[in-house]
């Protein structure tokens, strides 16, 4: 019988080695898998390449993972926000590498990586500093840049409801990059608010089919980043 459910967050992330490339779902706090990130902090894998739209907020979640010195390189579109202090400090000190990618290009690179497409052309960033070093090619009289697909060893993702086969549905704008990351990672680890029996999710409504998911852990009452920050929480 296929059963992708795990009972422990620690067990789910225990296979992540030093040097792994880890995609982390979420756009700001919406969809951020805080419990899985905190489990990765406890696990202690270092020298990671982390892929997320942002770089975390406050001293919890992704920001805490970075502050803990576990991230060597960030691939993201928007590494600053009103509550992001950790990344800017390390970046200015030269202690963390940044690959800045336009948001749509980041999404498409992840989608391509998951779909077995090594590269694609896009008009985004033509004529800007982010075009430097990239192959440019003309199609139908317009210039496009060649962008590489992006894949990962692991993805950490939060969803609303899952089943033991790894089928997922999400909540509102917490979906964002997560379905793409599930496709692009060799091993996708999901924290779900609820795990239901196969068949309880309507096949017409499933957003991420279980083939893209390897591990599911139930986290019924996930922490909310903005609440932790408002309370001045620091992890660990």
């Amino acid at each position, binding site marked *: 019988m296929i059963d992708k459910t795990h009972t422990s967050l620690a067990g789910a992330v225990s296979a992540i080695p030093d040097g792994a490339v880890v995609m982390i779902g979420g*756009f700001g706090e919406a969809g951020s898998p805080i419990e899985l990130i905190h489990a990765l902090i406890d696990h202690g894998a270092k020298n990671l390449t982390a892929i997320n739209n942002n770089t975390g907020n406050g001293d919890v979640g992704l920001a805490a993972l970075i502050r803990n010195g576990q991230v060597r390189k960030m691939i993201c579109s*928007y*590494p600053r926000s009103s509550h992001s202090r950790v990344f800017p400090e390390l970046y200015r000190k030269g202690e963390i590498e940044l690959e800045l990618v336009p948001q749509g290009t980041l999404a498409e690179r992840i989608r391509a990586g998951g779909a077995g497409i090594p590269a694609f052309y896009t008009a985004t960033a033509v004529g*800007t500093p982010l075009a430097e070093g990239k192959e440019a090619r003309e199609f139908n009289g317009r210039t496009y840049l060649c962008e590489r697909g992006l894949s990962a060893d692991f993805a950490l993702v939060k969803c609303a409801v899952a089943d033991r086969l790894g089928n997922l549905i999400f909540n509102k704008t917490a979906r964002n990059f997560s379905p793409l990351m599930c496709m692009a990672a060799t091993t996708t680890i999901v924290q779900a608010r609820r795990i239901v029996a196969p068949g309880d999710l309507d096949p017409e409504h499933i957003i991420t089919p279980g083939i893209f998911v390897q591990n599911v852990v139930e986290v019924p009452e996930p922490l909310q980043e903005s609440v932790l920050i408002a309370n001045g929480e620091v992890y660990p």
Partner: protein
Amino acid sequence: MSAAELGWSRDQMAARAAEDIPDGSYVNLGIGIPELVAQFVPAGREFIYHTENGLLGMGPPPAKEDEDPELINAGKQLVSSVPGAAFFHHADSFAMIRGGHIDICVLGTMQVAANGDLANWSTGAPDAIPAVGGAMDLVAGVRTIFVITKCLTRNGDPKLVERCSYPLTGQGVVSRIFTDLAVIDITGDGFRLVELAPGVTFEYLAERVDAPLLRP
């Protein structure tokens, strides 16, 4: 009227931009003054708002009891969804942008040039943390790019320039600029005045644009 009060307010700039958005448009609004456009939809028109983090049919900020930290806009503010809204993942969201399905995007800017070049993501300062978000995708993919901006920066420097000195977001992408002093089109010949704000003269405007300005 003192010089400081001359021209359109932020609300009036947003309302003037809204007038130029056709009924039935799919619209993406940038952060800041562009967000105000949603408050000034002309009577009888329906716009559908896209936010690039995965929602078509974005509504106004929710009532306290309806707030959901997982229902936010691209500026990470709490929003609502209107009846008929749809959620989707980021690749679908940017397919709407890059595939030319969004009709109009309204953006703020640091600089806009007479050739339609836009610079609104970085000053290029050595100690700045570069952050681009979806701006480059929007200007490359959305069919019509409107800019709402004051003519001058807080320091009094012109934002409408011959060539952008800041790093570009996109080349030749802007169609029309809604400023506090005038509506200005980007044409093949450069900036062309469309409409002056009340009390503003062509000469007054031309002194605040750092490039040749064509009469209507």
